[in-house]
């Protein structure tokens, strides 16, 4: 069951959000610079560049280690497990990311900017479906 845990926001430090804002902004600006210099074919590749995942996996790992060290325990193993789980989820999400891109590619000529909304909906639907299939596969194994 998917749920929202508001208290998890308190675990984050202000500078972690600042890092993600800066990294997200920089990724967007760099993708545009690459497209301006080398064209949309090369620039488009960088719309799937996993820079944000590098930051989020590192932050998740440090959160788990910090939580363990507060209880006077070593959290190396727990930290890498949490980062691996985050990365496995993102690998699954990358299939949905490809579906988003496919929808935008095929729909843009006829539907214009509306294709972004349809693509986002398709991303969410595919991501949730894949996650549920994975959960189902783990339970029935």
């Amino acid at each position, binding site marked *: 069951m998917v749920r929202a845990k508001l208290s998890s926001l308190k675990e984050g430090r202000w500078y972690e959000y600042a890092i993600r804002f800066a990294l997200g*902004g920089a990724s967007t600006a760099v993708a545009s610079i690459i497209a301006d210099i080398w064209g949309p074919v090369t620039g488009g590749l960088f719309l799937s560049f996993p820079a*944000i995942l590098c930051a989020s996996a590192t932050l998740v790992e440090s959160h788990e280690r910090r939580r363990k060290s507060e209880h006077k325990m070593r959290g190396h193993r727990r930290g890498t497990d949490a980062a691996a789980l985050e990365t496995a989820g993102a*690998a699954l999400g990358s299939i949905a990311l490809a579906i988003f891109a496919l929808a935008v*590619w095929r729909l843009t000529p006829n539907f214009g900017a509306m294709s972004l909304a349809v693509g986002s909906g398709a991303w969410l639907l595919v991501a949730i479906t894949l996650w549920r299939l994975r959960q189902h596969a783990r339970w029935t194994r």
Partner: protein
Amino acid sequence: MWRTLDLDYALRFLVGGSIVSAFAILGDLLRPKSFAGLFGAAPSVALATLMLTFGKEGPAYVATEARSMILGAVAFFVFGFLVCQLLMRFRLPALAATGSMLAIWLAVAFGLKQIFIG
């Protein structure tokens, strides 16, 4: 001309940062963690870029970028799979695992582009 370009990149930085942060907060909020991980591959940078590109370059340019993005997403899957292996089997720190595999993402993405688009 340079001034217009600077403003355009600054706007992209702000919009990209905001959308990525919104997805990151959603990822932090949601449980279980395996579901939240999906937001690590959210189309946040793509949404920010393509929204602004529609106005500046038009739909044909956006469609070309989206076609290449599919190949980038395939490279992302390979990247995610390998990082997961490095973390689980070799217990590398997350920054080292993800940082070293960025080279693999570049190789796979450009290799696929060369094969399928040229």
